[in-house]
């Protein structure tokens, strides 16, 4: 692209960029979480809810990890993502309430119905 004559930071409107779409967390909220002392992607998740929505961090974690790396000086290949937790796809509560056992191969049932989510 051609030189716009403006600095990248000058162009950036952190109050207009959604980093986490599911939970509607803006870039400036991530910046604020880091300023408040968040040191990891999980820290930011717990402070801001970024990564706790429908997509479970698919959309926001790479961006937040890069911001953590930049803010903390930890190399990007040493920055952990968020802990993967179920459900990785949206589930109707109605379906969970009806949870029953099944086994892929034969009819044998090994699972109890108490498995919590």
């Amino acid at each position: 692209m051609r030189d716009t004559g403006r600095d990248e930071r000058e162009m950036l409107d952190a109050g207009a960029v959604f980093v986490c779409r599911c939970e509607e967390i803006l870039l400036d909220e991530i910046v604020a979480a880091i300023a408040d002392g968040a040191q990891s992607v999980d820290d930011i998740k717990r402070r801001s809810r970024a990564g706790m929505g429908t997509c479970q961090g698919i959309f926001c974690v790479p961006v937040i990890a890069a911001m953590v790396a930049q803010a903390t000086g930890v190399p990007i290949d040493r920055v952990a993502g968020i802990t993967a937790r179920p459900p990785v796809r949206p589930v109707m509560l109605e379906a969970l309430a009806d949870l029953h056992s099944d086994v892929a191969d034969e009819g044998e049932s090994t699972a109890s119905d108490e498995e919590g989510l």
Partner: protein
Amino acid sequence: MTPSVVVVGAGPAGLVAATEAATAGASVTVLDERAEPGGQLRYRVQPVTSGIGSDAERPDRLADRLLDDALAAGVRFRCDATVAGCFAGLELLLIEEGATSRVVADAMIVATGSTDLPYPFAGATLPGVFSGRGMQILLNTHRVRPGRRFAIIGGASDAEELAVDVMLAGGEVVWSGIAPAPFLRAEGADGVRRLAVGSDHYAVDVIAIAVGRQADPALATMAGTPLAFSPDLGGLVPQIDDSLQSPVRGLFVAGDAAGVGSVAAVIAEGRLAGITAAASLGLASNEDVAAVRAAGGPELTWRLGRRTTLEAVTVQPYE
């Protein structure tokens, strides 16, 4: 009782892995959240090279071929079947038609593919902004072109492929390229009307973000597989050995879920995961595994080589 293998994901890697494990003698079930097996091969339209058969071919024809092989090997399919989680003992939570059930097998192969990398910029939540692969599904599977004038953000093969798809669908690519996110802004009152790139403005009604893909190994990590960072493989990828075996017993990862690659590479990797899983169940020998690895070609060798140097990144324990 015949050892059982469950494969999550019916894309090219999953289909081939299933065929390989079933041919070795396992009882194999493939789960896929979409209505039809084939994964990326069902929503891409430009010819792909598979490494099996000499020429590039239409993705849907390749999918049909891989599916026929799997069915001939006795693989069973459950489509419209979404795996929502993986618990201790490799117990899967499955959702079919709004009802949940559990699936347990002796071995599990995670072949869940990839997702588009994010590229957040101002206005990117306006109606009319899509991810690249989402756009391909809309155009090629659903035959819906959500506008006429497209901007495509991205500078590599994914963006190039999407630009051709848009033109094949009768759209016009007004702007395509990569710019630092702070210089980009989608504008419009109730949907995309313009893309601002620095001080330039382009009148568009669709913006697609195709800056690359990342592995989607969530089920493998949920089961306890560590993650490691590999720029070569697209970012955070599961830390598995050069036979695609996770440190979690009975768990294997193949294809884009193990790190994004070409169709030929994910097919070669699917085959290796299938035979490795079979070997773990006593259905194949180490020589069989070595033979499949040797037949995989240079890209597989390169990908497996990347894995030997990966160092797990620690996730802070939840306290």
